């Protein structure tokens, strides 16, 4: 699994961080998403798919 972000679209909802805190974080100043791990281990995949699906700005793209 490989993750790419279109961070300019991010609305700083922070939902991805709640769902997959080992993969996503937020910038301190504006809350925009930060990718901690672009190729997460298999045990993170389900959470990452959930985070990508739930993101209210369609920022997270998952390539499998």
């Amino acid at each position, binding site marked *: 699994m490989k993750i790419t972000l279109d961070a300019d*679209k991010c609305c700083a909802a*922070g939902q991805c961080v*709640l769902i997959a805190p080992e993969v996503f974080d937020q910038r301190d100043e504006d809350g925009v998403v930060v990718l901690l791990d672009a190729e997460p281990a298999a045990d993170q995949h389900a959470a990452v798919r959930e985070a990508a699906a739930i*993101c*209210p700005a369609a920022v997270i*793209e998952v390539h499998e």
Partner: protein
Amino acid sequence: MSARPIAVVGASAAGLAAAEALRRSGWHGPLTLIGDEDQLPYDRPPLSKQLLHGTWEPDRLLLRTRDQLDPLGLDLRLGTRATGLDAATRTLTLDGGVGVPPLEQGRERGRLECAGVIVATGVAARTLPGADGLAGVHTLRTLDDALALRAGLADPARRLVIVGNGVLGCEAAAVARELGHDVTLVGRDPVPMAGAVGTEVGELLAEEHRARGVRLVTGAVDGFTVAEDGAPARVGGVRLADGSLLPADVVLLAIGSTPAVDWLADPALDTSDGLRCDAYCAAAPGIYAAGDVARWDHPVHGRPVRFEHRMNATEQGMAAARNLLAELAAEGAHDPGDTPPERRPFAPVPYFWSDQYALKIQAYGLTAGADRVETTLLDRDERRTVALYGRGDSAVGVLAAGIPPRQIRALRAVVATPVPWDEARERVAAATAAS
């Protein structure tokens, strides 16, 4: 495995999320996604922000590209309107558009017998008498609406009157001021966004809009006047009930919306203020709803709620999809596979945000309809604020403006379920102490 499709009616955020969740959860049968607009599914929050501002073009709003949609194997019917649903037989009637099946033996044109249906038809913008056919008067719900309004504001220094001072009206006012237009914001309530966030936060927003040069007017609209430049049927102003006249080149009606349920005439369905659902987002056996159109029993808040919030659209789309599949598996109409074994009540922590100028407002839980609000102003000039919303003795919502993201996540935890008011106050104070 059923040969009948699952049909998702409504091809916006909720409908798309439902379709994707159906596939992720193991629905390998036919899947029909029906949208009444011609466009591929696109996102609406940027319509009143980046699209109106001109920083984004329509392509940027697509929720998924063609390449991302292809693996879903959708029977995607755009420009197609659902005109009826027989809940007992799970049969849809469809009108127009591409892909409506041709006459087949034993199959009436435009009828779709489904294994299950997810209703995600959203809401339609409200309008006012006299607005129809009057050039220069806009609503803002669809991409076409937003492009038309943007075109109306293409010339510099237009006089824009926005009727309605809720979230949408305030966001559009901010963009129009940034573009240099002359903006008047008219509301029945003197305080902008008061219905959504309460009076004190609304007053703070009013200060920000005034500081940016927006004229705030209180009043009810009585009608429109026509431009005197000889152009027939072009708006020239907005007339208020007190007789005053607000001259306008462009008018935006941002007076709320109506759930798109007119097509649901089946008496088995309750369509008063949206499609009424149980805690599982089910309106009837095999019939689910999600997004702006759905009014469901929130199990934590103990009363029916309906949210026109972007986050709710995706979350509820996913929940409705999983619950429908669990029901179909129990009926034997679906191989359970990866499907969750049983239905789960849909109990999200509601979330909404609004961007106005450089100000980002974020709220969790229920902020509308509170009977008590405590607002703490951390920095007036920067509008840094936190507000707690309560009903009875419980805190049920929290709002933050200009607060760092980590602290906002801590605030979310405070209202994930209703907590005693005093305990919530202490936790909010602790979470924002460093701001």
